[in-house]
C-alpha cells in the first residue's frame, strides 16, 4: 500500500474538518479525492504530508508512519498545495534550484521526469514566478514537486480556476507521470476529472460518502435519470420542482436532469404536465448517469 489512512479525525476548535476517514491507495494508483470546498480535502493532505497532526487515527505514506517517520516521508513525497506557494520573487530557475538543493539533488539528476513539463516553461526561465500566468505557475509548481523524484505525489486542487484546455493538458501530464510509477493522490472540485482517476473517494463535510472506481460508482447507481429540455430552462426547473412526484431537478448543460420518486414513472405524464405549464419544444429522454449526478444525490441523502 502506498497510502494507508485509518480512522483519521481532525477538528479545528468546534469544527470537525475530517471525521473518522479510512482509505488506501495502492502503489502506482491515481486516486482522486472528489469534493467541494470545505469537504476536508486540504486537511487530509496536510496530515498525510506531515505538516499537520491528526487528533486521532493512524496514517502511513510509502510505508512510513506520518508521525514517527515524518522525516522519511518528506524525502519521499512531492506536495503541490492548493495555494501557489513558491517564491514569487525568485525566477523559475531559482525556484527549481532552491527546491533541488533542499532535497540534495539537481535539476539535471531527474530531468527525465520533469522534462516534458519543464520545456513548456523553459522560455520564461528568467522570469519571476510572481509574474507568470496561472497555467505556467501550475507547471512550475509541479516541476518543483517532482524534482527529487518522489514516490508519492500529493496534488491539492491543481486545476481549480484553470481553464478547460489547460485542465485537459494537466491530466494528460498526470497520466504520463503515473506510467512512470508514481503514486498520485489528487483532489478536485471538478466532477468531470473524477472519471480520469483509477479510484475515487467522494468526500463531503469531512466524511467519505463512497470509494470505488468511477465506472463502478456510475454503474451501481440505481436511479433512472431523465434529461428534459424545453425552450425555457429556468421555468422548466421551477416547474419540475413543482411536479408532485419529483425527487430532484438540476440544470445539466443544455438539459435539466430529472429524477422521479416513483419507479413506474411515466415520461408521457410529465410531458403532458409540462404542456399544461405552457412549455414548448419539450424533449424527455433517459440520460447517461455521470459522477456529478451521483455526487449530488449522495449530497442530498447526506443532508
Amino acid at each position, binding site marked *: 500500500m502506498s497510502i494507508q489512512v485509518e480512522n483519521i479525525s481532525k477538528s479545528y476548535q468546534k469544527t470537525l474538518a475530517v471525521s473518522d476517514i479510512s482509505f488506501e491507495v495502492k502503489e502506482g494508483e491515481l486516486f482522486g479525492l472528489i*469534493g*467541494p*470546498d*470545505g*469537504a476536508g480535502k486540504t486537511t487530509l493532505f496536510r496530515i498525510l504530508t506531515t505538516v499537520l497532526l491528526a487528533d486521532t487515527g493512524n496514517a502511513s505514506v510509502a510505508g512510513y508512519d506520518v508521525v514517527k517517520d515524518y522525516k522519511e516521508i518528506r524525502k519521499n513525497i512531492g506536495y503541490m498545495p492548493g495555494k501557489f506557494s513558491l517564491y514569487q520573487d525568485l525566477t523559475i530557475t531559482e525556484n527549481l534550484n532552491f527546491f533541488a538543493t533542499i532535497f540534495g539533488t539537481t535539476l539535471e539528476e531527474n530531468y527525465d521526469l520533469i522534462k516534458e513539463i519543464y520545456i*513548456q*516553461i523553459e522560455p520564461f526561465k528568467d522570469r519571476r514566478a510572481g509574474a507568470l*500566468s*496561472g*497555467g*505556467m505557475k501550475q507547471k512550475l509548481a509541479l516541476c518543483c514537486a517532482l524534482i527529487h523524484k518522489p514516490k508519492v505525489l500529493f496534488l491539492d*486542487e491543481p486545476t*481549480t*480556476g*484553470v*481553464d*478547460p*484546455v*489547460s*485542465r*485537459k*493538458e494537466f491530466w494528460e501530464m498526470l497520466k504520463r507521470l503515473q506510467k512512470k510509477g508514481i503514486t498520485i493522490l489528487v483532489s478536485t*472540485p*471538478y*466532477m468531470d476529472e473524477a472519471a480520469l482517476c483509477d479510484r475515487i473517494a467522494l468526500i*463531503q463535510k469531512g466524511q467519505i460518502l463512497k470509494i470505488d472506481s468511477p465506472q463502478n460508482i456510475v454503474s451501481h447507481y440505481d436511479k433512472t435519470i431523465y434529461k428534459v429540455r424545453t425552450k425555457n*430552462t*429556468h421555468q422548466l*426547473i421551477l416547474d419540475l420542482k413543482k411536479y408532485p412526484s419529483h425527487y430532484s431537478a*438540476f*440544470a*445539466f*448543460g*443544455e438539459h435539466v436532469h430529472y429524477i422521479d420518486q416513483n419507479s413506474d414513472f411515466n415520461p408521457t405524464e410529465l410531458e403532458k404536465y409540462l404542456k399544461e405549464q405552457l412549455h414548448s419544444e419539450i424533449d424527455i429522454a433517459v440520460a447517461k448517469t455521470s459522477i*456529478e449526478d451521483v*455526487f*449530488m444525490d449522495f*449530497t*442530498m441523502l447526506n443532508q
Partner: protein
Amino acid sequence: MNQEKIISVQNLSKQFGHFTAVNNISFDVYKGEIFGFLGANGAGKTTAIKMLIGISKPTSGESLVAGFDVKHNAEMVKKNIGYMSQKFSMYDDLTIKENITFFGGIYGLSRNKIKEKTAQLVSELGLENEINKLVGALPLGWKQKLSFSVALLHEPKIVFLDEPTGGVDPITRRQFWEMIYAQADKGTTIFVTTHYMDEAEYCDRVSIMVEGKIEALDTPKNLKQQYNVTSMNEVFLQLARNIE
C-alpha cells in the same frame, strides 16, 4: 429578450508595453441578457472586464456601460454596476450584517434603505439566524450567494460575476445559477465568466476570447451547430488553444 443595448464595446484595446492584452474587441450586451464571457487563462478576460467596470483605462476604443463611457465617466459606470468575484467577495472578519451595512454605505444607500435591504436579503437567503456571524465562518457556497446579493444591493443595471462558482459544490453551483436566472428575469443584465462549461450552456449568449480577441460570439446552440459538436466544452477545446 429586450434589444436595448446595455453594454456596447467598439474596438476596445489594452496594451501593456509591447504586449496587447485585449486586441480590438467589439460586442454588445442586451438588457436582461445572461452573457457568458469565456476564454482560457491569459486570454485577456480579466483585462477586458477591468476596463468595462471602470478600473482600467482602455488604450484605445470606446465602450458604453449602463449608458456611460468607461473612459470619461468611470465613476458613473461604477455606480450603475455590481461586481463580485471568487477572490474578492466580502470581509471575512465582519459579520453578515456589517458587510451589508458597509457595502450599502459605499453605494450611498440611506440608513433606512440599508435596513430594509438587509431584512429582505437575509430572509431571501434564509440567513436570519446567522446575521451576526462572521462571514469568514460561512461555507464558501453561502458566501458566494451572499456576495451575489450584496453586489445587487444598489439595484444595478448590470452585474459582473467573475468566476462566481469556482470550487463550489455541484448543488450550490446550481442554486447559484437559479439566483442568476431569477435576477435576469427581473431585467438585470448578467455578465459572467466561468471555467465550468456546463454553465456556458446556461447563458443566453457566449463569447470566447482567444489571445486578446473575441473568436466566437453566439448562442450556445448556434456555437455547437457551427462547430458541429454536442457540448460547449468541445466548442471551447476547439477554439481556445493554449497560448503559453
